[in-house]
């Protein structure tokens, strides 16, 4: 930030500057532009100001000020969220946690670490790797997203199939409530703190219940051995069936990822090509890990299942270098779409794993119906689809068509008993789609909980829940069929 004194008469800006310091606030339009959206770029809105607190006390003071003066506000990590959770829809004061990025404590004997919310996900693993430990949740954005943002979104990643998502790794939180009060839950990481499971409730609440200022996480020991398999298929159907059969054979791979032909075209045209054949219909990237004495047996089983489903070619990574290349190719998959399309929209539906073939067929139909290409690159093992709708925002009407196609993909997921989001969150993007899976009463049951924490609804308002319809009563009706 530039060195200069506050050049505005806005008393709120001046007051906030007194809390965080003049060098830790942005309020000029040209400075605010960078904060008008996050990874979901379809909606934009300028914040009132952006503040960069460096301590819990500063966060609490800013929040208290906003609370007292009825200023809307929200928290922001790295801004990589894909559903619009950090977009200041109401001209919020954005509280950026990027300067609270210290690793506060590592306790390997008890397998835990304490971080500030702005600490970047991958840095945690890097900080303990020399002792053979890691932090399990690994969103593809892990090189830049913050652990605070991960908590808010309950982020997942490729290796969550075996090791669980963020919520399974959070042991304690310090939280600034929307009125500025600071609470600590789970303190030093003692399991099952008595009372309702607020850790579980706050994780995944998309920054609408409080601002997380300190996080105690679980660390894991590296697995003794790891093997990675790449399998190429001529039919999507065969790849899907392979996924189902691996799961139902009782194998729990560390990761089980799938890409279809369009996705492969993109990753091969982008920064980390690995030479996948362009004419295959789908590939699977499968990783198993654990005790080395047990791995070969699992690999043999996986290879046999692949062959049973007419795999064209299947290979096991021969070196750590080869494995790393396969993963870099996969993990940069979303961005790779830029190589074949001006714009893309990521969707995030989840389905029961056995329904993969039919839902992928349905997504192909949706693609034809809207005349937009849809690439699929996703966490097949837990049924978490990422249809990427490719479009060109400069063509009139195409953005709307892309949004409609995305929404229809979610409808297809909901129709087979699935969910509209597995890891990216509802945010602004999927608010209305909440109705695909929840009744009005169920949505009201959730907003009732929000009101306990955030009664003035100043914190990140207008996210997560659909705008109440005319037919929705304001109090809870008594039955649901």
């Amino acid at each position, binding site marked *: 930030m530039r060195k200069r004194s506050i050049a505005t008469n806005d008393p709120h800006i001046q007051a906030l500057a007194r809390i965080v310091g003049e060098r830790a606030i942005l309020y000029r339009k040209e400075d605010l532009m960078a904060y008008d959206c996050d990874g979901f770029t379809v909606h934009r809105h300028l914040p009132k100001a952006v503040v960069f607190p460096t301590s819990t006390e500063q966060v609490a003071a800013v929040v208290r000020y906003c609370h007292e003066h009825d200023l809307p506000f929200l928290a922001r990590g790295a801004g990589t969220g894909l559903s619009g959770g950090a977009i200041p829809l109401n001209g919020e004061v954005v509280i950026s946690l990027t300067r609270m990025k210290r690793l506060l404590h590592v306790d390997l004997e008890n397998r835990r670490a304490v971080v500030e919310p702005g600490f970047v996900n991958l840095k945690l693993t890097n900080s303990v790797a020399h002792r053979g430990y890691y932090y399990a949740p690994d969103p593809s954005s892990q090189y830049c997203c913050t652990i605070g943002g991960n908590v808010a979104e309950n982020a997942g990643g490729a290796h969550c199939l075996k090791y669980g998502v963020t919520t399974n790794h959070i042991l304690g939180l310090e939280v600034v409530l929307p009125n500025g009060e600071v609470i600590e839950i789970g303190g030093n990481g003692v399991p099952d703190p008595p009372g309702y499971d607020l850790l579980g409730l706050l994780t995944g609440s998309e920054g609408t219940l409080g601002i997380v200022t300190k996080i105690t996480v679980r660390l894991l020991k590296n697995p003794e051995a790891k093997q990675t398999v790449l399998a190429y298929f001529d039919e999507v159907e065969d790849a899907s069936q392979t996924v189902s059969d691996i799961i139902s054979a009782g194998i729990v791979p560390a990761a089980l990822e799938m890409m279809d032909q369009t996705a492969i075209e993109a990753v091969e045209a982008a920064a980390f090509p690995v030479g996948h054949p362009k004419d295959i219909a789908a590939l699977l990237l499968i990783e198993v890990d654990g005790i080395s004495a047990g791995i070969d047996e699992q690999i043999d089983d996986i290879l046999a299942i692949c062959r049973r489903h007419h795999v064209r070619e299947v290979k096991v990574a021969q070196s750590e270098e080869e494995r790393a290349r396969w993963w870099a190719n996969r993990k940069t998959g979303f961005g790779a779409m830029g190589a074949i399309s001006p714009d893309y929209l990521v969707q995030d539906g989840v389905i029961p794993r056995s329904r993969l073939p039919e839902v992928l067929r349905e997504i192909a139909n949706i693609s034809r119906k809207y005349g937009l290409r849809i690439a699929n690159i996703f966490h097949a093992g837990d049924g978490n689809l990422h249809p990427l709708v490719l479009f060109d925002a400069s063509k009139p009407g195409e953005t709307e068509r892309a949004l409609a196609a995305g929404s229809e993909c979610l409808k297809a997921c909901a129709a087979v008993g*699935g969910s509209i989001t597995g890891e990216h969150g509802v945010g602004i993007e999927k608010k209305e789609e909440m109705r695909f899976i929840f*009744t009005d009463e169920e949505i009201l049951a959730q907003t009732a909980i929000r009101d306990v924490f955030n009664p003035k609804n100043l914190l990140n308002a207008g996210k997560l829940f659909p705008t109440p319809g005319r037919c929705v009563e304001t109090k809870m009706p008594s039955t649901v069929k």
Partner: protein
Amino acid sequence: MLSLTWIEELQEFLHPEQIKRNDSFHPLGNDGAVTVYPQAEEEIAAVLRYADQSGKKVFIAGRGTKRGFGGQREQADILLSLEHYAGIVEHAAADMTVTVKAGTVFGDLQRALAPYRQKVALDPFWPDEATIGGVIAANDSGPKRLGYGSARDSVIGLRIVYPNGTVIRSGGKVVKNVAGYDMNKLFIGAMGTLGVLSEITLKLRPLAKYESVVLLSFPSGDVHDIRSFAVSFLDTMMEPVCFELFNPTLAERLTGRPVYTLAIGFEDVENAVHYQEQWVERLRPKAAEMAVLAGEEAAAFWRTFNTVAPNGRLAQAENGIEAAVKIGVVNLDVLSILRESVLIADRCHVRIEAHGGLGHGLCQAYVHGSEEGVLAAMEELRQAAVRLGGYAIVKHLPFSLRQRIDVWGGKPSYFFLLEGIKRKIDPNKTINDQRFIGGI
């Protein structure tokens, strides 16, 4: 016999044989003037709606193994038993998920899944008597929590009957889901104070191909030896599903030898299990003695283990009082708690059988002795836990003594949030009133 005319009104939505009047009250409390046995979700909803609208109090029970866990009222108007609300609703074997009614006995569920080589990854106490609903509502877990996780890691969806009779679904049937708030979490471990769990959807894990448990006993009694072994073993890449320490009193019951004993469990393919056993062998201190129970022997060991905790369904202890305390501390502090359990037993002239997981930080202590001795021992256990930054809650105690000790050990600083949640969902305090922390 009490004359309770309102009981007739229950017959508007229940058959007479689903309604049972109670003449005497259970010494563990949490009883009802009348017990009702709904067999369908609509009946559960009807009972709650009736109670909520007519100012009646309802207690919720599975089969009563946890009757002595919390609760400051001896009886409510209605005891809602889910005993007859049991069975699997849907087992999607290919998706590795199951939906089950809350009154299903945990062991019955596991036995139904076993032919598919699948299981619910939880090891609660008294699996052949406890219902899945009770296990989830009380957030019960055993030594294998280290490898399995706890209820919050397995539950993916719930149907909950709210106190006003509304049915609310949380989560769903898929293994990964962040749509809306993670409402499942609110009801897990809520001791039935927010709603009646009706149906529970769980993700499943494959049954292990092979299992063993290594019993490593430390005759020296020196916890430093145990600590240094634990630290070095837990720093390897081995993957024990449990790493549970028994105090000498409990070890004597389970193994016949009154010395600190570690139970280290492995579940994997046979090769991998033996390989890990060899690591234990390699790292163990010279003085420690090692025995391996494999396959069915290991399973039998855990079956016995699972019945060491007091059980609210059994007759009360004849000589003296029986209590159970759950203690949470940071992982390795379990060692201090177990050591304290030995000292406290001496000081308070009670018998304490205790165990705790060095990889997860939860301990259970079963205290047996005179009223005064048991109360004093529980208080001391709590002090020891609090000194270490942890907590102790009383999981089993006769009703009369629950008046004399704070079962939940005080309120957290954010208690107003817990109270606020309760008030939103159950403003009339219709269900399980005063069963939970701070009297909610």
